[in-house]
């Protein structure tokens, strides 16, 4: 292990880690939006919306995220979508994780006891009111932990955009492996940064989950 080398290159890795964090945060926000919309569609009263939601989930979860990124970044210009690598990364990763979050959010909503809906309708609440004041507050508690699993997967998933040459952590590690021929040191450095990011995120999710529990 060449620690001098690690000390020399680590500032570049930290810079790259900032890009990884930006990618993760932006794509997770987009993913949550897609997930909420997807869950709305899948639980909709209209068959066509339900079908659209189910197709979204099935197609995205049935094909590799890498291929989806390639279609967007390399194939996009052919159908008039010009994105730079970072934008393509955020949109591709966000839409991808959105399909998994759709299922998480939908699962949490249908896990709320059916009697709750009946009771609130009996009390004279409308469909939207029931959702807003009765179902969602309870479902939100149930979805924190599984969404945390999605988020954890997404942080590691950001490594994929190295393949469309976004200069994030994995791409940087790859570039330094190429120029220094010291793969173990670079892996060690990048790996530790990933683990720190994931560990801190995990602490945040645990905190949120504890706060959300009813005592």
């Amino acid at each position: 292990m060449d620690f001098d080398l690690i000390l020399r290159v680590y500032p570049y890795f930290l810079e790259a880690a900032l890009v990884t964090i930006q990618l993760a945060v932006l794509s997770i926000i987009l993913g949550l939006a897609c997930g909420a919309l997807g869950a709305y569609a899948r639980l909709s009263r209209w068959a066509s919306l339900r079908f659209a939601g189910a197709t979204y989930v099935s197609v995205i979860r049935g094909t590799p995220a890498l291929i989806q990124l390639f279609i967007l970044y390399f194939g996009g210009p052919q159908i008039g979508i010009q994105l730079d690598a970072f934008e393509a990364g955020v949109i591709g990763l966000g839409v991808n994780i959105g399909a998994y979050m759709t299922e998480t959010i939908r699962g949490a909503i249908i896990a709320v006891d059916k009697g709750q809906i009946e009771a609130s309708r009996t009390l004279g609440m409308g469909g939207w009111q029931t959702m807003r004041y009765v179902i969602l507050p309870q479902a939100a508690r149930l979805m924190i932990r599984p969404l945390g699993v999605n988020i954890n997967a997404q942080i590691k998933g950001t490594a994929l955009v190295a393949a469309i040459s976004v200069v994030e952590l994995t791409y940087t590690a790859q570039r330094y492996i190429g120029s220094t021929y010291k793969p173990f040191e670079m892996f060690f450095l990048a790996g530790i940064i990933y683990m720190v990011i994931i560990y801190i995120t995990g602490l945040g999710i645990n905190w949120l989950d504890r706060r959300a529990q009813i005592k």
Partner: protein
Amino acid sequence: MGLDFTVLPGYFDALLLGSLWTIAIMLVSAVISFFGGILLAVIALYAPAIVRYPFRAFSFVFMGTPLLLQLFLIYFGLIQIGIDLPAFVAGVIGLGLHYAVYNSDIIQAGILAVDKGQHEGARTLGLSRGQTIRKIIVPQAVRTVIPPIGNNLIALLKDSALVSVIGVAELTLTSQLAISKTFRPFEFYIAAAACYYVINLGLEYGLRKIEKRVAVAR
């Protein structure tokens, strides 16, 4: 530049071959991840602390870092210490180990869920501790966790696209080669996505069959 899907039929054979390689990679790494997962789970639960803790650290590292990075380490990193693996082997080992760690987590839960009386009963009948784990506990535990392991297998199929980055000529790399000749990324990546989707459907069908068999045998 518009779309022109008529370039696809000329590369039908290449895409088919790529699909077969993807299936081969998936099957080999599935076997590694399944048995590796069982081994890791048994070690994590039963081995003495001096073995257990290094293995826990190993699992932690594999779960906390991206698969792509691990593939780079195995393919480019092992050369540094004198082990030069062919890309296919490196890819299969990387995928297999990565998912073995995830499977091990699931199998551990399965082992803990096996009734304690089974262990006591087997020991009373004169089986040694090793025999009890191997012949009584693990078979029952694995049976209950087949569905979540199947989900991991589907994730593994999709992650097999990553080994294209270290130069294994599977479906993704095959389409990239075709694109470098025809300059038609959209058509070929859509075709590759369709192939993955079909393989995925086949895999899901197979998994449902296995799940049903296991359920009947109970």
